């Protein structure tokens, strides 16, 4: 049995590590093996960030190219950057709200139109689910809950190796009591988007 590989990409500060820990702890509590690779330090200062989750038997925490089962991208451009990790069979859940790189002004390549990005992703994967997670998070009560919107949306992917109950428990365990309700709401809104 091979591990179920989840690649999560986005921009530093979007809550990618928290999301990964929520999934990973849920997997652990469900009795599964799990490894997570995180990026800390210099790489976080507004740069592109990714985590790699392997649920199931594995020794290294890094996903080989083309072997992600699921890509959750918190930012459109960072979905494109993750393409080497995915194959046609990879499910993609992507946020369509963009964050411009600080140096886009002098950049040789412009920021592509988001519609083009989604089309490009669709040409590389059989299943692409796009959503404006920022809009949904704002409605849920806090823009900071974009990550839980994305997690909720990802739960709709066929074969996602975790049930909803475990994830909700893990959200409750990983956020302060005060912010749990908003995060659960954001998670449910994201889930409802495709269910």
């Amino acid at each position, binding site marked *: 049995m*091979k591990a179920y590989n989840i690649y999560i990409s986005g921009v*530093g500060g979007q809550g990618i590590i928290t999301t*990964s*820990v929520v999934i*990973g*702890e849920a997997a*652990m509590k469900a009795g599964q*093996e*799990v*490894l*997570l*690779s*995180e*990026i*800390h*330090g*210099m*790489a*976080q*200062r*507004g*740069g*592109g960030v990714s985590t790699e989750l392997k649920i199931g*038997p*594995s*020794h*290294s*925490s*890094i*996903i*080989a*190219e*083309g072997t992600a089962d699921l890509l959750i991208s918190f930012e459109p*451009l*960072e979905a*494109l*950057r993750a*393409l*080497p990790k*995915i*194959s046609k069979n990879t499910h993609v859940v992507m946020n369509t709200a963009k964050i*411009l*790189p*600080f*140096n*886009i*002004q*002098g*950049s*040789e*390549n*412009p*920021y*592509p139109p988001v519609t*083009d990005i989604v089309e*490009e992703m669709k*040409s*590389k994967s059989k299943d692409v689910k796009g959503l404006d997670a920022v809009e949904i998070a704002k409605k849920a009560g806090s823009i900071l809950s974009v990550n839980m919107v994305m997690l909720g949306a990802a739960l709709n992917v066929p074969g996602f190796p975790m049930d909803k109950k475990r994830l909700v428990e893990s959200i409750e*365990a*990983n956020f302060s009591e005060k912010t749990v309700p908003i995060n659960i709401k954001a998670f449910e809104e994201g889930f409802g988007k495709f269910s």
Partner: protein
Amino acid sequence: MNLNDILTGKENDKLFLLGNEAAVRGAIEAGVKVAATYPGTPSSEIGNVLHLLAKEAGIYFEFSINEKVAMEVAAAAAASGVRSFTFMKHVGLNVASDSLMSAVYTGVRAGMVILTADDPSMYSSQNEQDTRYYARLANLPLLEASSPQEIKDFMIEAFQISEAFQIPVLVRTTTRISHMRGIVKLGPVEKRPEKGFFQKDPQRFVPVPATARIMHQNLVQKMEKITKIMENSPLNKEYSRDGNVGIISTSSAFNYCLDVVEEDEIPLKMLKLGFSYPFPEKTVLNFLNSVERVIIAEEVDPIMEKEVLAIIGKHGLDIEVNGKLDGSLPLTHEYTPDLVREAIYKILGLKMDSLLIQESDIPLPNRPPTLCPGCPHRASYYAVKKAAEELKLSDVIHPTDIGCYTLGIASPYESADYLLSMGSSIGTSCGFSKATDQPVVSFIGDSTFFHAGIPPLINGVHNKSRFVVVILDNRTTAMTGGQPHPGLPIDGLGDPAPEISIEDLVRASGVSYLQTINPLNIKKAVETFKEALQDQGVAVVIAKQPCVLLKKTQKRGTAHLVVTDDCDDCGECLSTLACPALYQGDGQVEIDPLICRQCNVCVQTCPQDAIKGKKRRANK
């Protein structure tokens, strides 16, 4: 997860821990009573977690002024019979190495473990040196972990070896292992006394020529004894046993190899060396005798590979070795699963199923890390440039230092011209001022100034150099996540502590010009830098303004900045500040209110005076 679980977790509990968090649990289980560090990624989170837990865990913990002092604090504790733990990034061990070399001679009474985290591929470092050489240079035992569970378990093993042989033990991790999160099964916590007693024994603890000669002989004998026991160490073990080709590996490289062997069901014999120095000659010889060919997988330098070649030579074996030295694996950067898989297939002459690796057909703009919105360093860079421009100075050299301000390398700041190591901004300023007639303005952070900036500053004054030092005092050790340092009123345990004044230290060193400014006041900052640039000696400007990442300085949601209709779209703010909150909207520049921290630098620098503050509506 609650970080308190690392302390309160019971035996057999399972936690989902980062490698660095597992190291803290290892220290707690081993009964460590003194711990010291200087923060450095990829080891920083060990200190962050100890900062939270040490007091309750009954551990004395400090953020030392630098790694050398951290090493000395730990060595003295272990010499007094108290288990001690010091940890640092790979280059931090360079700073600590002077005392390490002697601590290995004197030895310890209670266990002392030094954890060092290497950074292959340099995610947050200036080089990717392989710290395993230090085990050979200083002659001390070396353990290499390959998972969070192993980091915790090896810490405990390391303390046992250290105490049994009265020698410090080195535990080496890499970024991939320190920042890997995995399931860690907890063990029991050993109860040990908090205080020790230093029994004087100058023959043992004072290495002067007469005593050091004996100490070195004793060290060699200790290592011979350790070699004997480590041949049977459970940390070195064989994994799969098929085939006549073997792999010897360790740490991350081992993980990649074992994944290939298990997932692709390739018949390969595997030997993992978790206890890798002294090199287990008998264990390896035994393994070599069972294969016709051996692959050595390690990061970053071919250290084990040369050890294996020596054993093959010594015993006259006829075995082909594939590794870094024959080009099968690269000599630089970390491995990846793909790289290791491809190398193994190539060496074995196996055909790989060709997998289409997809790439974007749309050209991608980069997203490099940058100074945060509201970062006071941006203002300092701007003001220094402006000051030099107004004085018509050209070819100004900007030696820089280790910290967020290395991000000044990027356009439009271009304020990082030369960098070697912690404190090198000021040391190299001394050299530039003597070797050239160019103006020199160097940048160094507050924590880095304490760490290694004071001796070169005194050096510059005494040797009559001429340069400007800008101390970017943002009241924290920012790049590594915001740890306190001696300039702050808090210590490693979270207790109140005397605040050491940077200004007083600088004044005492006898500089000819000293000013403290708030860099966010651009006009005053430019004036001050102009004065400093005209000074004939060593001029110091302390640009004091807290880091925007410090919680108490976060200002979100009260007011925000807007670009008014006065904007003529000249683009000056975009091209000189490159602030993440500023972007080209439709028609004119706009400010993202969610990103903006209202530092007001753009307000002050806009040539059209077109940026204004605006009250936010209460319900937003």
